[in-house]
């Protein structure tokens, strides 16, 4: 059940994707880029802390797009049944 799933990758592409997801959990901590006590304001109005968090989600969006294309095709019986409705 676990082997071959996303959480137990069996190819280098999937392993890289899994590693990217794990890296995101670590990168959630904004102090890794020195923002824990930052009072920097970007563009005159956007605090750096929330700018980082927004960028974090934009990167996440990119990873999800890669996941979208690398995800295995759904078994035909499920997909064809669903699309026919």
């Amino acid at each position, binding site marked *: *059940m*676990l082997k*071959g*799933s*996303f*959480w137990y990758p069996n190819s280098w592409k999937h392993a890289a994707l899994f590693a990217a*997801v794990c890296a*995101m*959990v670590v990168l*959630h*901590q*904004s*102090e890794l880029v020195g*923002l*824990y*006590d*930052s*009072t920097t*304001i970007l563009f*005159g*109005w*956007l*605090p*750096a*802390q*929330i700018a*980082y*968090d*927004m960028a*974090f*989600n*934009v990167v*996440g*969006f990119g*990873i*999800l*797009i890669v*996941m*979208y294309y690398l*995800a*295995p*095709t*759904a*078994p035909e019986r*499920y*997909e064809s*049944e*669903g*699309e026919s*409705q």
Partner: protein
Amino acid sequence: MISTTNALILGITAVYLLLVVAVGAAASRITGDSREDFLMASRSFGTVVLLFALFATNMTSVVMIGAPGLAYSTGVSAYGFFVSLFAFLFPVFLMTFGYRIWIVGKEFGHITPGQIFNHRWESDNLGLLVMAIFTIWTIPYILVGVQGGGIVFESLTDGLIPYWLGALITIIVVGMYVYPGGMRGTGWTNTFQGMVFMAVLFAFFLYVPFRIGGFGAATDAVAQIDGGVFLNREGLPPYETRMYFSQGIIVALGAFMFPHLILRYMTARSFTTLKQTSVVYPVAVLLVWVPTVLLGFWGIAQIPNLENPDFILPELVFEFFPTWAIGLALAGILAAMMSSIDGQVLTLSTFFGEDVLRKFWDDVTDAKVVWYTRIFLIVIFVLAYIGALLTSDTVVDTATFAFAGYGLLFVPMAAAFYWRSSTKASIYAGVIYGFVGIWAFEYGPLPPEVAGFHPFVPILVTQILLMAVVALVTQPPSEDRIDEYEECFEDVW
């Protein structure tokens, strides 16, 4: 005597509520009496409806009141603390774990998590326990939504609609579209209400700083306070590294395990629908949460010393918006409240119909299940209303506690899909341990944090260890049953 101002506000709000009921009525026209159609909309939701069904239900009561309230109390880091990790991990889970949930729903006709637990581990009563725990965590969350409806009505009509009447109106309107329309009624109204509250939110986001003097002026005013303490995480205990990590994990696991969302994963038309929803999800979260957090953040300097931070968004609206716009604002905030309550109430009713009626009443027909589900809906509405008159918790506090409770069902449920040698006893142990553990930390003699982490983290780790040990010494289900599931997941993430 009703003033012109209040008449205008109430008129706009009434028109909005009628529109919501009309959308629900349209959905109910094509909703049949079959259980599959009433409870699951015949598993036919496309990407847009599924996105809003998940998003509007998941985000709204917390985002419109809780997020600005949290930012008002603790500053701009509220976004990263509460939602940024969730916005990434939730879609990852949806595309993997959620996909497997969707498959077993299709393959075996499951509707509730309880049915999955019973079937996967060949149990008679494990599902009932899971249903009871899901229900216990959901009830306070419903109360907060109803309470929020009462608060905004009273606040934005300047007391003309008192709290008790505002909460009652909220309940009745939700009942008018959930009762006849079932899952399709909630899906369609969620789409409509999700669009309304997003539009209203963007209006808040642009207009409030415009009135203050621009985005720069609004931020500068907060940056002057105590050397910019609200600009970062330093010195704020919830934002220290380990607690910050804990909160991210709690929300990501907990929100994925919302029972009303688990049901909706199974309403997707296809895997492609699930994938598309997953990809768009973090963008939707970002578009909604950033404005609400910044509004609460800007409110620190504009309306200082609010006794209850949850009131900051209504107070900003009242302070800065023209009268006619307050009606629209009220409609937008109510959209947020109602699109959460509907899914939660329908889910508890579905649990009752599926995990109790169909489980323990041999000859019950589909039509009777739907009928009793509707009766149960009314019972929950009445209980929720009474509860809303009695409760006084803040949104974020209640949400975090409930998220932790849901999150401790994550591993037991994941075991159904990823852990071949898990056993019925190991799942019982994990479910009960998680439930008792989180209550013991919250209200019992155990400390409120462990080595800087929220209690959720050590409970989660020890829960996994306990389940592993129990699984080693107890009997797994039959090979046939395990093989049935394993076959479903061939070449599936």
